[in-house]
C-alpha cells in the first residue's frame, strides 16, 4: 500500500481517550493505590502504516499495547479496529479480532515454549483458529519460515537451538501465521545485538511492504523509531505528549519532553547533554503531577501548567502537541 492509499483509507486502529488504571493492593491498614498507567490516550494506525509508540518505562506505552491486545482491561475510552469496538468484544468476536491483530514481544526466549518444535510453535495459532488441514498448515509453516529468513529445516528443531535474533524471527513467523492486519510489537529488537537488530528492522520493513501489514512499534529507542516508523506517538507518564510524522519529528521534535528525549538519545558526535531540568526525576505513576505530567521536569513550565492536562491539539499538518506553551516551539 502506498502512502497515498493509506491517507485516503480510514484508520485500521483507532484509540480514543483510552485510560487504563491498575489498583495496587495496599498492605494491611493502608488504602489501595491507583497506578495511572495510561490516561486519555488517542491515536490512530492506518492500514499498512508503522506507528512508533515511544516513551520511558512507566510511560504507559506497553500498557497501551497490551490494552489494545485485550491483555489488560481498559478503565475507560474506546479502541476501534476497522470501526468495531474492541473493548466490548466477547468470546468468538474476540477470537476473530485476535486473528486480525497479533503480537511480538521483547524476549523471544520466554514467549516460545521450549518443549515445542519450531514448526508446532508457528502452527499453533493456525490450530487455535482452525485454519487449514494438517498438510496445508505444514506448507504454510515452511512459507512463513521463508518469509522471516529461516530455512525449512528450522521447523524440526527446538527454540534453544536458535540465537536470539533467530528466535525473534520465529516469534514474528508465529505472529504472521494467521495473516494479521496489525502487529503490536513491544520492544521487538531491544534485546538483540546491534547487527541483529538491523536484520530484524529490515525484516519488519520488508514484511510491511510485502504484506501491507500495519505495525504498532513500541520502543524506547528514538533512532530506531525515527528510522523505521511513518509516524511517532510520544508518551510520558501515561499521556500522549506529541504525535508527528517521523521525518518531521526527527528534524524538530516540538514538545519539551520530545526535545528532552532527542537530547538524551545517543547520537554520533554528541557528548552527553547536560540536563537543564533541575528537578529531573520521573514522578511515580502512582501520583502523577496535576495538570501537565511533564511540568515537574520541564524547563518551560509556568503556573498555568499545573491546572489541567493540556489537550493534544493540532499544530501543523498531521502533527499534534499537548503543551500550553507550544507556540514557543513551532
Amino acid at each position, binding site marked *: 500500500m502506498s502512502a497515498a492509499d493509506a491517507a485516503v483509507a480510514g484508520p485500521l486502529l483507532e484509540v480514543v481517550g483510552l485510560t487504563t488504571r491498575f489498583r495496587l493492593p495496599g498492605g494491611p491498614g493502608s488504602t489501595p493505590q491507583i497506578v495511572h498507567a495510561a490516561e486519555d490516550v488517542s491515536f490512530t494506525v492506518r492500514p499498512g502504516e508503522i506507528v512508533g509508540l515511544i516513551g*520511558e518505562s*512507566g510511560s504507559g506505552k506497553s500498557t497501551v499495547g497490551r490494552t489494545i491486545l485485550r491483555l489488560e482491561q481498559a478503565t475507560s475510552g474506546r479502541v476501534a479496529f476497522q470501526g468495531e469496538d474492541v473493548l466490548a468484544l466477547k468470546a468468538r468476536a474476540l477470537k476473530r479480532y485476535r486473528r486480525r491483530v497479533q503480537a511480538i514481544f521483547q524476549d523471544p526466549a520466554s514467549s516460545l515454549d521450549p518443549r515445542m518444535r519450531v514448526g508446532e510453535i508457528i502452527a499453533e495459532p493456525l490450530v487455535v483458529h482452525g485454519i487449514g488441514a494438517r498438510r496445508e498448515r505444514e506448507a504454510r509453516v515452511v512459507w512463513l519460515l521463508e518469509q522471516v529468513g529461516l530455512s525449512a529445516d528450522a521447523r524440526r528443531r527446538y527454540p534453544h537451538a536458535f*540465537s536470539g535474533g533467530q528466535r525473534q524471527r520465529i516469534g514474528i513467523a508465529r505472529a504472521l501465521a494467521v495473516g494479521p492486519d496489525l502487529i503490536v510489537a513491544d520492544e521487538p529488537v*531491544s534485546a538483540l545485538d546491534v547487527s541483529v537488530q*538491523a536484520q530484524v528492522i529490515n525484516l519488519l520493513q520488508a514484511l510491511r511492504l510485502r504484506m501491507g501489514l500495519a505495525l504498532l512499534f513500541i520502543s524506547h529507542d528514538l533512532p530506531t523509531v525515527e*528510522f*523505521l516508523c511513518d509516524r511517532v506517538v510520544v508518551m510520558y507518564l501515561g499521556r500522549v505528549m506529541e504525535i508527528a510524522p517521523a*521525518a518531521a519529528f526527527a528534524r524538530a521534535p516540538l514538545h519539551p519532553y520530545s526535545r528532552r528525549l532527542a537530547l538524551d538519545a*545517543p547520537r554520533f558526535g554528541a557528548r*552527553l547533554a547536560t540536563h537543564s531540568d533541575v528537578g529531573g526525576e520521573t514522578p511515580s505513576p502512582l501520583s502523577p503531577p496535576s495538570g501537565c505530567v511533564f511540568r515537574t521536569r520541564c524547563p518551560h513550565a509556568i503556573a498555568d501548567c499545573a491546572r489541567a492536562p493540556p489537550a493534544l491539539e493540532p499544530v501543523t499538518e498531521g502533527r499534534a502537541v499537548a503543551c500550553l506553551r507550544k507556540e514557543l516551539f513551532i
Partner: protein
Amino acid sequence: MLDAPVLTLEALSVRFAADRGEVVALEDVSFAVSAGETLALVGESGSGKSVTSLSILRLLPPSGRIAGGRILFRGWSGETVDLATADEAALRAIRGAGVSMVFQEPMSALNPAFTIGAQIAETIALHQRVPWRDALARAETALAKVGIAEPARRLGQYPHQLSGGMRQRAMIAMAVACRPALLIADEPTTALDVTTQARVLELIAALQVETGMAVLFVTHNLALVPMIASRVVVMYAGQIVEAGAAGEVLAGPKHPYTRALLECLPARHLPRDAAAPRPLPTIEGSSAVRPAAGCAFAPRCPLATLQCETGEIVLRAVGADGRLSRCLRAELL
C-alpha cells in the same frame, strides 16, 4: 606512580571446557584503564566482552579458566594485586569495595528475599563500617541519585516490587555506594530508557569526577561510546580487533568489523529521506562460525582476501595516534 593504571590486562587468555577439549573464549587481550578514565569495551554476543569483565572479578563459571596473562588491579591504597592469581580471601576484600560491578540483568545481583534498602545498606555497612542507620540513609541518597522516585518508600520494597528499569537503577546505586576504584559496568543501561540511561551515564561520570574511579564500560552499542568514554576497545570472537581514541575510532574505523557495526545503527542513517527507508546494512553470517586459521572476521568481511584466511593476523599500530587494528587491510579503510 600516580598515573599508573587502575586496571591493566596483560595478554589475558580464557578458555572454556567443551565436549571435546577446550574452546578459546579470550585470546591475548591487553588494555589498561587509568583513574578517572572510562574505557568502553564494545562487542556483540560471543565477542568475549562479558567474559573479560567476569574474568577481572574471577566470576567465570566453573567451566571457564584463566589460561594465561595477568590482571593487575591497583586500588586506592596504591597496592597492586594480580587478580588472575589472587586467593579467594583477597578477592572477597576487593569485590564490591575496590572493584564493583553492575550487570545487565539486575536480578542476578539483587537478592529477592531482602529489601532494596537492606541490600544496599548491607554493602555500605560491610565495607565502610558505618552504623546501620547511617548506611540506610546513604542507601536512600544513593537511590535518589540514580533517579528513583520516592526513595524512602523504595528502601522497604523487595526487588520484585520494582520495575525492571528501577531494579537496574537500584543495582547501580548499590555498586557505586562504596566508592570503588574500578567500576565495571557490563551493559548497565541496555534495559533502560534513553533519558534514564543518560542520567545513569551522567551519574557514573559525576561519581568519576568526584572519586577518580576508573570505569570499564562494557556495551554492545557503539552509539553510546562517545557519550561516556574517551577510549574504546572493540572485540570480536574473543580478540581485540580495534582500539583507540573514541572519537577517532567512530569517525574513521580502521577495522571492517567496527565499520560494519557502526553502519548497521539506525542513528547513522538519520534523518532518512525516502518515504520508505532503505534496508540497513547488516553483517551477514555469524561469529560462531570461526575459521581455524587467519582472521576471525574474514568469513563475514567484504574486504577479505586469500591472505586474510591464512596465517596469523596480529593487532598492530595503525597511524600515529595509538590506534590499533587487527586487519591486514586497515590502510584501505
